[in-house]
């Protein structure tokens, strides 16, 4: 009975083995040198603690790296990449096992384990791994070079990379086949079937005489070795660098709640500059991010600015920042990236949520805006500068009289703050904009019906500062925030109807010392509904729900509004881009203040998506979304007539009149 194993360095002269290791070392050396050079670039950046809670980071990072969850989310390429990765991983593990047996256990302890049934499994796994990797690579090759998806950019050495990897895998099988032609074909057929791919080649090679096979094998072995050396060496210089950078970046994730922005210390007298103006203003993590980008373009595919022909691609922005950093000079980031790109962002977070390399785009964009706003007094347009002035003078971006802030609430059943269950932080649009005042009134009606007592700050309320902050005006934001926090001092529970107020009070204000509980109405009303605190008359009708970025991607409130929609009796027809894949209305990131002068209108594109569902109403739960949708639905050509409403309006409509009288 033949033993089920193989001779590891079959046909390789013993003298060649050290040379093999020398070449491997050479390849690794070049690789390390390449990464060391990159390390120097990262080190230009400022310090940032991203290794706290290392155990958790390692666990989460490793899980992500091994299971490829983020990479796999994309249809098509996700599966191709993952199976390629897993195939490759099997080959890598197999090769490592060989190394362990041949160079460690066997010479030191005389232990061999690549034998018997384990060897059979090993052999089959290696063959299948290689086969899967080859097929997946063919798929990826087809996508990149034949199908050529829009916006996919080449990187240096892409062609060489494909050639190298393909040839390594192919020569691997050929080598196996040559070896098997001599050692297994006709000798140990029972074992040979565990190398099915190799066996195909082996049967073919078996037609040759052994001498030819052996010299072919040796030559090919050397060629294979050269390819592997080249592979190692090219890693830091091609997109292959992501083999290391992406998993490492998984370790460095931001463990703040989503949407966290660094709260600048504006009183810092030693600070020469604020925001991100040049590479030395970045943190090492920012620079690392620019290097971790794999040009997969998933961010770009989802970017509302890019999709409406504006000069912003999150991918290109990150790469342009990287270019400045790799010049190792203090060049201007905003010049490299382009100011129009910086201002075009709606901070919708679609890029960050989708990025398989965990790159943090939005904080960088806000950082560059901060530099423009705080150091140059620059904004995307006069209308935004004017809004900044209105924030300062009137505490709202609309320029309305602060004394009129609570006019909408006249005669409504509100209570003094001390008696209230919740302080309703109304926000500027619901306070001053006639359309959104209806939403605020609907909320008060709903709360009243539910027997929940609401108070408002009234004239004392100021803009939460969100649009100013997202436009880079951290100074103005902190001023407004400080004043609001002062007014909210004795308040325990706050409810907002605006997701931007919600995010800002609930997350951003924490750095400034605000401790009250904050909830968005969708979550609160759903609770009321579950607690049977109000009844609804069900009305039919087909609606679609537009997820606000700050409710959904930032805060994960997807189910709550949908639950309430269902309670109204409406038939919900989802847009393709919904939930975490929702497409922004165009008003986030302070863009509500700005003219949309470049490209086509984001809101119209979104309204068209909504129209395609055949819905009569596009429902949202955000004053900015409602404002944008209101404008956009009017501009739709033909098709289904559609109106824009806030979820609260549907709820208030559905409240039975008797319900009201009872309360």
């Amino acid at each position, binding site marked *: 009975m033949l033993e089920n194993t193989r001779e590891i360095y079959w046909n390789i002269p013993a003298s060649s083995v050290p040379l093999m290791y020398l070449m491997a070392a050479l390849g690794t050396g070049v690789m390390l040198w390449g990464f060391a050079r990159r390390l120097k670039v990262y080190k230009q950046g400022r310090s940032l603690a991203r290794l706290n809670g290392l155990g958790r980071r390692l666990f989460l990072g490793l899980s992500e790296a091994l299971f490829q969850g983020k990479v796999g989310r994309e249809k098509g390429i996700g599966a191709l990449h993952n199976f390629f990765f897993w195939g490759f991983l099997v080959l890598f593990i197999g090769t490592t096992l060989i190394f362990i047996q041949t160079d460690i256990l066997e010479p030191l302890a005389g232990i061999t384990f690549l034998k018997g049934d384990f060897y059979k499994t090993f052999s089959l796994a290696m063959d299948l791994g290689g086969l899967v990797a080859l097929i997946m690579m063919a798929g990826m090759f087809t996508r990149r070079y034949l199908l050529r998806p829009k916006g996919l950019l080449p990187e240096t050495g892409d062609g060489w990379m494909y050639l190298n990897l393909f040839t390594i895998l192919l020569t691997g099988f050929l080598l196996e086949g040559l070896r098997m032609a001599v050692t297994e074909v006709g000798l140990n057929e029972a074992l040979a079937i565990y190398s099915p791919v190799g066996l195909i080649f082996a049967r073919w090679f078996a037609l040759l005489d052994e001498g030819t096979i052996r010299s072919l094998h040796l030559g090919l072995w050397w060629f294979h070795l050269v390819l592997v050396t080249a592979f190692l060496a090219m890693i830091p210089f091609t997109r292959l660098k992501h083999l290391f950078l992406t998993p490492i970046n998984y370790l460095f994730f931001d463990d703040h709640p989503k949407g966290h922005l660094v709260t600048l210390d*504006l*009183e810092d*007298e030693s600070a020469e500059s*604020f925001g991100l103006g040049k590479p030395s203003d970045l943190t090492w993590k920012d620079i690392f991010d620019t290097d971790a980008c794999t040009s997969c373009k998933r961010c770009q595919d989802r970017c509302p600015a890019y999709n409406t022909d504006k000069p912003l691609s999150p991918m290109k922005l990150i790469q342009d920042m990287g270019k400045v950093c790799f010049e190792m000079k203090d060049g201007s980031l905003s010049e490299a990236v382009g100011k129009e790109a910086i201002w075009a962002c709606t901070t919708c977070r679609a890029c960050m949520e989708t990025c398989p390399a965990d790159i943090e785009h939005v904080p960088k964009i806000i950082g560059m805006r901060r530099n423009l*706003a*705080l*150091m*140059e*007094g*620059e*904004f995307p347009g*006069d209308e935004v*500068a004017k809004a*900044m*002035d209105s924030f*300062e*003078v*009137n*505490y709202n971006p609309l*320029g*309305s*009289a*602060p*004394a*009129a802030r609570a006019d909408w609430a006249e005669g409504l059943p509100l209570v003094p703050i001390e008696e209230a269950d919740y302080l309703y932080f109304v926000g500027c649009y619901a306070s001053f904009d006639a359309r959104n005042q209806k939403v605020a009134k609907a909320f008060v009606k709903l709360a009243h019906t539910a027997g929940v007592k609401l108070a408002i700050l009234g*004239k004392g309320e100021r803009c939460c500062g969100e649009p100013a902050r997202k436009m880079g005006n951290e*100074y103005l934001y902190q001023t407004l925030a400080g004043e609001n926090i002062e007014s909210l001092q004795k308040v325990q529970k706050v409810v907002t109807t605006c997701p931007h107020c919600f995010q800002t009070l609930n997350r951003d204000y924490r750095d400034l010392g605000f401790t009250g509980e904050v909830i968005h109405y969708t979550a609160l009303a759903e609770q009321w509904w579950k607690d049977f605190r109000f009844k609804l008359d069900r009305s039919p009708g087909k609606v679609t729900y537009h997820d606000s970025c700050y409710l959904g991607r930032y805060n994960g409130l997807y189910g709550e509004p949908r639950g309430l929609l269902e309670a109204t009796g409406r038939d919900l027809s989802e847009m393709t881009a919904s939930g975490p894949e929702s497409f922004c209305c165009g008003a986030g990131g302070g863009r509500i203040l700005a003219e949309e002068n470049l490209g086509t209108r984001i809101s119209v594109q979104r309204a068209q998506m909504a129209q395609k569902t055949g819905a009569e109403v596009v429902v949202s739960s955000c004053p900015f979304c409602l404002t944008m949708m209101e404008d956009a639905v009017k501009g739709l050509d033909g098709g289904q007539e559609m109106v824009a409403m806030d979820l609260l309006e549907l709820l208030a409509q559905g409240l039975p009149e008797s319900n009201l009288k009872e309360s």
Partner: protein
Amino acid sequence: MNILVCIKQVADMESRFVVPPGGSWFEETDLAFRINEYDEYAIEAAVQVKEKLGDAASLTVLSLGPQRSSEALKKALAMGADQAIHLLDPQGPQKDSLQVARAIHSAVKDKGFELIFTGMQSQDRGSAQVGILLAELLGIDSVSTLVEFSFEGGKIQGERELEGGIRAQVTLATPALVTCQLGLNQPRYPTLPNIMKAKKKPMETLEVSGTGEAVLGVKEIGAPPKRGAAELIEGDLSAQVAQVVAILKDNKLIG
């Protein structure tokens, strides 16, 4: 060169103005205040001259008004003025143009200002007097309502905006005062470092003096007639058209 820019802090025009019974000015409670819009152009023009002249120039910003006016001065300092003078006068908003001009005159007459900027008028009172009066009191040349301004070798070249948008080109020599019309330039948004620096710039607060007697007596102040909730014009089309034509005629909006 000593440059002066005179500014006023005014209530935001979006405000809902409330006049107390028998009062001669509106109540300030709950109102938002800002730099008079015209004065923002004056500040910007002055800062541009100062920046051009470098260390050879010193820019003073002055405002007459109640305590709150110091906020306007701070913003002007953040925009680039070097020092501020606050002529503290709780009754400032109710003073006649002539009284204001006299008070400013007595505060600045010995300071040797060679170039003075003011807004064309204030948004609240709209008298368009103080700038020209100040120049006349100081005995220096002045031109009003500039929409173009340049300063070269002691010579001012400017364009006055006339009705219908025609512009009259004028020249004059310093010492001089110019009043600034909207659109003269693009007033800057102060940068954070400048806001921080402004906090340390000197601000001198002086009691107001030398105003003299008032020349106007305010007998009444209130909402102008005819403003209010919209009147609905309903009925059949021809009646509606006739009614609108009549309104246009009554208001001399058509011949």
